[in-house]
């Protein structure tokens, strides 16, 4: 089988690789690029632990081929913090005890980030619907929802400070 030369931007950095067509994006990230923050959970596109952003859209990286990512921009959990400053979602998961074992957390945070980019002021129901493709077997989701609510509030406040414009109420 032939390999394909691909160029992928991951967390703002250009990467190149020669890949077999059957290589999954999650394995490209973990095994080829060493970015092991993205987890393999069920490996059947159910659990969402492998969620990353592909061209800004959340995706389950166990269900996309690495060749499909050619020319695209990927964001993983490693791209969320700025230096030592955690992303508001990462801080909120910490503050609200939004994790126990932590296995689902990278995918949960990436899906939450996509949700808040799409809908900066979601209701509790919209949060629960938004993370319905991500399974957590520890928390019962209550603290995850609280964490996303905290982050949404902080991110909206930060956006207001930045632009000086009031943020539309839900």
């Amino acid at each position, binding site marked *: 089988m032939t390999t394909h030369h691909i160029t992928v931007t991951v967390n703002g950095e250009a990467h190149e690789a020669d890949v077999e*067509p059957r290589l999954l994006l999650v394995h490209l990230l973990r095994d080829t690029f060493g970015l092991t923050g993205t987890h393999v959970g069920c*490996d059947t596109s159910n659990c969402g632990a492998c969620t990353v952003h592909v061209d800004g859209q*959340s*995706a389950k990286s166990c269900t996309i081929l690495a060749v499909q990512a050619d020319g695209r921009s990927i964001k993983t959990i490693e791209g969320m913090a700025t230096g030592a400053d955690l992303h508001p979602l990462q801080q909120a998961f910490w503050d609200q005890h939004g994790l126990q074992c932590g296995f689902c957390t990278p995918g949960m945070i990436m*899906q939450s980030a996509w949700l808040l980019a799409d809908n900066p002021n979601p209701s509790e129901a919209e949060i629960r619907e938004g993370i319905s493709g991500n399974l957590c077997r520890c928390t019962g989701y209550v603290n995850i929802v609280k964490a996303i609510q905290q982050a949404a509030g902080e991110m909206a406040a930060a956006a207001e400070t930045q632009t000086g414009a009031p943020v539309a109420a839900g």
Partner: protein
Amino acid sequence: MIPGQFDYVRPGSLDETLRILKDREGEAKLLSGGYSLLPLIKLRLAQPGLLVDLRDISGLDGISETDDYLTIGAKATHRQIHEAPVVADRYPLLHDVTAVIGDPQVRNWGTIGGSVAHADPASDWPAVLLAANATIVCRSQSGEREIAAHDFFVDTFQTAIEPTEVLTEIRFRRRPRGQGGAYEKLERKVGDFATVAVAGIVRLGSDGRIEGAGIGVTGVAETPFAATDAEAVLTGNAPSDALFRQAGLAAGAQSRPAADVRGPVEYKRAMTAEMTLRALRRAVERALAYA
């Protein structure tokens, strides 16, 4: 799970795609969003020799309404369809179904054409296409072919598409006044395939009677099917809960469920009847609201 080996190609045009399909007939499989196909490849239930990625084929993801049709390009994602203003405003059945396919990540990438061509016996779109008897448009090197949904879903994972054809668009007849539709899905948990789901469409005449009805059912037979017995029960009669229950029983009787982890045969027949009842209730409400 590591998929078996296959070749991969990303053609730049539809003509090139059709030529590849002809050259590698029977060996090539089209890749769109991948959320139906890749899980099967990973399980090695599908082992294509060549994946043809449709990513660079432009013009296949439009959503537009004309005087006669609502046309949806095969590459339109579930999410794009859900968010299209024309769908949100006037096609509640399509708006319903695109909210409950898989989960948000699946809806970001999965496409209507991929889902329909894949023809999983418990997938959502086929029920909607059957209820509407939509037209599935396919292209090959010999030209374009239109296939009615009622003739399209042949068997489990089998459709009327030829190996040398590409599904290019789905055409729904434009919604007339007095028509409404609804989708009711019973699932064990969010993101699961349907235990059973029913798409119902009702068109009311000026006398308030049901002039035409379409019922598509998924999850309870070897392939999604049109519940034609239930449609016959409805046509010509005034809408009522009693009539909808009768239609539900007819749909349940026409189903051919298999007992599995989602329940025994009797339960699935009963739930087919119940989902039919619920879909019809909401379809009629919507038909009345669009008089």
